[in-house]
């Protein structure tokens, strides 16, 4: 758990970060969004003390992060930046082994961990271990950057616009991979982005920042249904809020139980993981009223109607 208390950074007259307080639960993803210059990166870098705060403090699992040398703290916290920052003179395996080597792990353990991470990120260790960063595509470099940040099994991962340089399709894949990884390793993630869609897709909680201040920090559906002020509403996109709300609920969560006699034999079958937004779009496209929600084996679990979906597009 990360507790941020009154964290402040001042550069001369500029308040880069102004008395921000927030709590990030263990094993959750917190996403920080905001316009350019709103203080997102500064806030993130004060968590691992790449930037020393002017005021306030950060507690990591109850312990003040100021109580140990910064470099030691950073070895326990994963850090991924836009444009990955891989070491061009070191191979993929050497890049990933950076922090374990700083922590003086044994070579066997480093090798095993490197292979495990490369596999988890769908890079064949036999092929990629010995390559240099410039021999990889942008998406592969980004994945190696994530693997490097996770190498020493950090409990916390900080990510500053990690997908900013990827094209939309690879970016979506990278987001899915991140969710998988987060589930697999149980890492607590704080991620900074410009992209509100990305924030809603990844965040258990989303923090909206403007001019150094934290405007609102809550679950995504709360940001949509009850924005704390007009700026948050504008940022979450008031014109799209109904659709955004639908995108936050999956078909599995919203499915109505099958009543006796219903076979679940609608023409349209959707997986439980589909968002209501996707199901609605499919129903409208096909001019149909109902869809069957099926599990991975195709067994019907419930159904969804246009009316039931629309009912969820309004604040409760």
């Amino acid at each position, binding site marked *: 758990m990360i507790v941020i208390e009154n964290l402040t950074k001042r550069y001369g007259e500029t308040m880069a970060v102004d008395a921000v307080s927030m709590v990030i639960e263990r094993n959750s993803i917190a996403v920080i969004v905001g316009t350019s210059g709103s203080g997102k990166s500064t806030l993130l870098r004060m968590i691992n003390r*790449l930037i020393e705060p002017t005021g306030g403090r950060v507690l990591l699992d109850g312990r003040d992060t100021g109580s140990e040398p910064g470099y*030691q703290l950073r070895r326990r916290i994963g*850090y991924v930046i836009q444009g990955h*920052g*891989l070491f*061009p*003179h070191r191979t993929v395996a050497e890049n990933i082994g950076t*922090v374990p080597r700083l922590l003086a792990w044994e070579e066997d353990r480093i090798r095993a961990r490197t292979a495990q991470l490369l596999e988890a990120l769908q890079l064949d260790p036999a092929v990629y271990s010995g390559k240099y960063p*410039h021999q990889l595509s942008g998406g592969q470099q980004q994945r190696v950057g994530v693997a*490097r940040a996770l190498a020493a099994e950090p409990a916390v991962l900080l990510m500053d616009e990690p997908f900013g340089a990827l094209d939309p399709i690879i970016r979506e894949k990278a987001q899915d991979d991140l969710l998988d990884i987060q589930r697999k390793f149980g890492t607590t993630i704080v991620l900074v982005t410009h992209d509100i869609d990305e924030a809603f897709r990844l965040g258990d909680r989303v923090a909206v920042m403007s001019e150094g201040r934290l405007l609102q920090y809550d679950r995504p559906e709360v940001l949509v249904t009850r924005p704390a002020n007009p700026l948050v509403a504008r940022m979450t996109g008031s014109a799209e809020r109904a659709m955004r709300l639908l995108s936050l609920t999956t078909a599995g969560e919203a499915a109505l139980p099958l009543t006796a006699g219903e076979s679940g034999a609608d023409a349209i079958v959707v997986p439980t993981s589909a968002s209501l937004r996707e199901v609605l779009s499919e129903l409208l496209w096909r001019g149909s009223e109902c869809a069957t929600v099926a599990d991975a084996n195709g067994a019907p679990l419930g159904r969804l109607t246009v009316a039931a979906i629309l009912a969820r597009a309004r604040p409760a």
Partner: protein
Amino acid sequence: MSTPGFSLPRPASAQQSAALPRVDRLGALLTLLGAAGLFLLPFVTFKANRILPGDPRGLAQVLPVWATCGCWATLAAVAAVVLFAVNAPLRLAAALAGIVVTGTALAAAANALTPAHNLIVRVAAGAGFWLLLAALGLLAADAITRMRPGPGTRVLLLAAFLGAVGLTLAQGTFDNVSVMREYAVNAAAFAVAARQHILLSLGSLGAAVIVSLPLGIFCHRVPRLQPGVLSALNIIQTIPSIALFGILMAPLGALAAHVPLAAAVGIRGIGAAPAALALFLYSLLPIVANTVAGLKRVSPATVEAALGMGMTRRQTLMSVELVLALPVVLTGIRIVLVQNIGLVTVAALIGGGGFGTFVFGGIGQAATDLVLLGAIPTVVLAFSAAVLLDALVERLDRVPQ
């Protein structure tokens, strides 16, 4: 104009070259130069003694007819190869064959013109010989460049070249050529000069590296200081070397006069001390500037990642920033080393020693052979240093940014 318009001429010229053999431009130019050297200029000059003006002699005047014809025939074959062949190893072989023949002709001419046991007569290589050798050397260099050898191969080639030259000289092949006569007289002084020359250039370089690296790192870290430091070093760099030697003579002389310890460790107004100090000062700018440039080329994201992963500032500097900047820093060191090897020659004027002693001694006595005895090894030394450090830079710069 559209792109296709530009690409049109290319296939046309390709067809042309298939129909009739293309003449290699560089080959043509160098063949002309070589021919001019061979036929228009004296191949050797004959002097009754060391200082008298020379009497020019052509190849045909000195060697027997069969040898002259053999020489011309070989060089004609070399010309044919460099004019028409594209194959780089073949061109290199031709150039080397030409160099061997030219060298042999010089040795033979010197032997033919020197009466037995006569140590007074001097037979010097003439302008024609030098021009021919230069043309052939350029051809060899061009052929090697076309073969794109890796850094290791280039060092091997250099070693082979130096080894071959060394062996030939040790064999006594050129003992009757005037420069070698001069060497025979000055052998002991030559060894001393060589040691001084190498020590002065490497020593001042070493001291400059020790000072410049931290200074460059400092300038990189504190960008405000950069313009000031660099322009101060730049001003030193613009002082002509002789003037700088002179400027340093006074304070060092005073230092030696008033501080006995300074005098005891060999610091004097003239000699090696002002020379070393001047070379050191000249060496600062290239290394500092290149250190700054090398560090600047390390991407900020890489540095941030290093710090973000828990490397200390020192670890980041040593194992990331400096490693990535090293090729650029080494380029600066290469500039300095080659520059110093040349400048040490001038240092002889204030008693710094080195090969310059022969050059200035030779100028004073109007003895060209003595000048060459100083100049040739200086050039070979500078050339070798350049090849070695270039290879090292390329070797280390395998990983692109």
